[in-house]
């Protein structure tokens, strides 16, 4: 009986050690990763893009944040948004380029009832690693909002 108790005690200690070691592998993300996502988001919004204007002599150069605002205003006015499609593809490639190779991304812009989503929607909220890794940037007093999420 005593032998069995001693054996079980030592086995329990070993098990606890192993479980503790394994659980440390999935600890909370470090500050560097949060900082990276925040920086990447700032870079995306500051980048200038060229929107081809079919009926005007000069193409419009604007920041990504201004372009998205123009996109939402065009939708709101019921205007044709085809001219935005190529530049939205460019923005997708840009975000892919800034996303680490191991990560997925989802970039969303919100304006009133409208929403623009680029990237993937996390299929299972539990699998988002970590769900808190995102950067949210409100513009125009929060009327226009951008959110960048990355997960493994």
């Amino acid at each position: 009986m005593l032998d069995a108790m001693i054996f079980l005690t030592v086995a329990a200690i070993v098990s606890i050690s192993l479980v503790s070691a394994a659980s440390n592998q999935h600890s909370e993300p470090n500050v560097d990763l949060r900082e990276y996502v925040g920086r990447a988001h700032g870079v995306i919004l500051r980048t200038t893009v060229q929107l081809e204007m079919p009926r005007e002599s000069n193409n419009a150069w604007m920041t990504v944040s201004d372009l998205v605002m123009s996109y939402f205003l065009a939708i709101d006015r019921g205007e044709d948004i085809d001219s935005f499609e190529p530049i939205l593809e460019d923005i997708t490639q840009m975000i892919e380029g800034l996303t680490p190779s191991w990560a997925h991304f989802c970039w969303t812009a919100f304006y009133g009832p409208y929403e623009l989503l680029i990237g993937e929607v996390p299929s299972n909220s539990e699998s988002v690693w970590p769900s808190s890794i995102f950067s949210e940037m409100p513009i125009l007093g929060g009327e226009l909002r951008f959110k960048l999420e990355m997960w493994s």
Partner: protein
Amino acid sequence: MGGFIEAILAIMIVTSGLILLTFSFYLVAIDDEVDSDLDGRCEELIDLVLDDDSIMVEPGVIRHSALGKIDFSKIDIENGFKLVIDEISPEFTIVLGGRGTYSEGERCCLSVPVNVYHAPKDVRPALLRAWTW
């Protein structure tokens, strides 16, 4: 009596397992220290650019025309390194500086998203990358 010997044997096996486990963690810790040293050098190179106000338009935005003014003499890195800017759209790589050629051994890379300011209407996304070995 037989049960006692079996218990002692079991304890010896478990103890040897614990010793092996501890030794493994010790080796991992040593490896982390090496990585940490390389990480530190990468951060030093990245900060050399990001903390230099003479080449920054604003925090996170590097002036393209000032890239040749980076002063590598400010840092003391004896080992090999390479510092580049990878512009993403359009794709373009600018080598800012380096020393030596990587052949084998530990190598560390650190990437930081930045904008490169070419002109008032031409601000591009990029990754500022540092390698040390």
